[in-house]
């Protein structure tokens, strides 16, 4: 069980304070509130992942008796380590939250923009087989650029259309990668 776990990485660090965060981190400038919260979120993400992976490991059965290591061993190991690191991250975030220097919060408008981009991306995936590659990708380009703060919508649309048309011509017509076509043929 030597290779796949990250022990080799954790092993060679001497001088860690027992039970606490590594000393190396303490030497860094303290994280601001946003980063601390981000660390906590990462911890939660790992915990969710750990639950999924461990549940899967429990559901798997050894296919044959001939194999000494079954398909569940690695998921179990990865899941357990995810749980440990997840807890460590959440605890770490909770401890540091009080002391963390405040940072300007992310304005709601930007969070909405991110949500907008996700809607746009999913919309692109839905529209691709219906509206064809050129139209849906142009919409993706234009929408994403505007959400990111592009100033002139019509110019952006023109750039997007050109870019996507060139991509389509090169990949679909020249190289032969079949991209979905809309009712108008491209």
């Amino acid at each position: 069980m030597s290779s796949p776990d990250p022990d080799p990485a954790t092993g060679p660090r001497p001088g860690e304070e027992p039970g606490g965060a590594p000393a190396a981190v303490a030497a860094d400038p303290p994280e601001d509130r946003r980063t601390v919260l981000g660390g906590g979120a990462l911890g939660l993400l790992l915990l969710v992942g750990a639950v999924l992976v461990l549940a899967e490991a429990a559901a798997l059965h050894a296919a044959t008796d001939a194999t000494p290591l079954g398909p569940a061993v690695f998921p179990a190991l990865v899941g357990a380590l995810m749980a440990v690191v997840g807890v460590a991250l959440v605890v770490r975030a909770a401890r540091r939250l009080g002391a963390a220097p405040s940072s300007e919060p992310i304005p709601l408008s930007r969070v909405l923009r991110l949500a907008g981009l996700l809607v746009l991306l999913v919309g692109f995936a839905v529209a691709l087989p219906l509206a064809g590659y050129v139209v849906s990708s142009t919409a993706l380009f234009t929408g994403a650029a505007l959400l990111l703060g592009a100033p002139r919508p019509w110019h952006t649309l023109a750039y997007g259309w050109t870019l996507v048309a060139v991509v389509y011509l090169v990949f679909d017509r020249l190289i032969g990668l079949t991209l979905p076509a809309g009712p108008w043929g491209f």
Partner: protein
Amino acid sequence: MDSTGRDMDEPGAAARPGPGRLVRSLAPFVTAALATVGLFAVQTDGERAQAQELLDGRQLRLMAPAEPGGGWDQTARELQAALRDRVGRAEVYNVGGAGGTIGLSQYVRLPPEPTELMVTGLIMVGAIESNDSPVTLEQTTPLVRLTTDYEVIVVPADSPVQTTADLVELMREDIGAVSIAGGSAGGVEQITAGLIAADIGADPAEVNYIAHSGGGEALTTLLSGRATAGVSGVSEIQAQIDAGQVRALAVSSAERLPGLPEVPTLLEEGVDVELANWRGVVAPAGISDEDEQALEDLLMEMADSPQWQETLQRRGWGDAALAGPEFEAFLAEETARVGQVLDDIGLG
């Protein structure tokens, strides 16, 4: 990408005041218009010009349900070449993974058009079974079987195992101690190993089968001398047999193969196993009987052509052309047999 780079450079340039500003700020629209012209221009002189009767002038599309480079991909691309004279340019696309079941799950969603074909074979029959695939070949219209590729049992050149009898002896002694390297789990190599074990009275579930993502990878495990024996498609390992890097013990065909005349069949060696890794073509479910007949005729004619015979020769594939109800009966039989073996192995 260059052109993109240049196009994209222009917003900065356009913002700069100076002579020609108007021209520059119009430039993106001019290029966009040119691109549109380009889109329409290539559309008219596409493959649409190549009309033929059978498919109403539409292009044939062939799905290879595997990554580029594998057996189905090769079959699809050889078909593409062989059909060129008959139906013009055909398109091959790959949807790889999971023994073809990922490709199949996409394929069954296609509209019932006679222009949409898919390459299939024994491995897909096995994968549907072992992956508990929700979609099966029953949701397609089987057209023809075209080729077979037989399996060969090999050992490293310096192995003490000289004959199939030696190998069978070892397997009877302690089946777990005989490691057999081959392709993916549940694939045709594992099925072969399972059938052999069943025939010699051992438990197929106890075969120490070492799965690999492909024949090439299995070959390296074999050449490193760690595995007792290997099972591989003949065409994949012919070069190594010829070079003497591995020794062939037996082939899984009914008769000796022209490419390996020295190598006995499993039947000759007293192991009652015959297995062909066949490959064929299916069409979507729900196409009309006339379309089905026309496609079968097209493919069977192609299979008869000197060009296709030359292809079989070059690739080392066996000719296994079979169409219509005979092929459907064969398919049902194979499905039952493979399902049984996989159940015995513990993968069903």
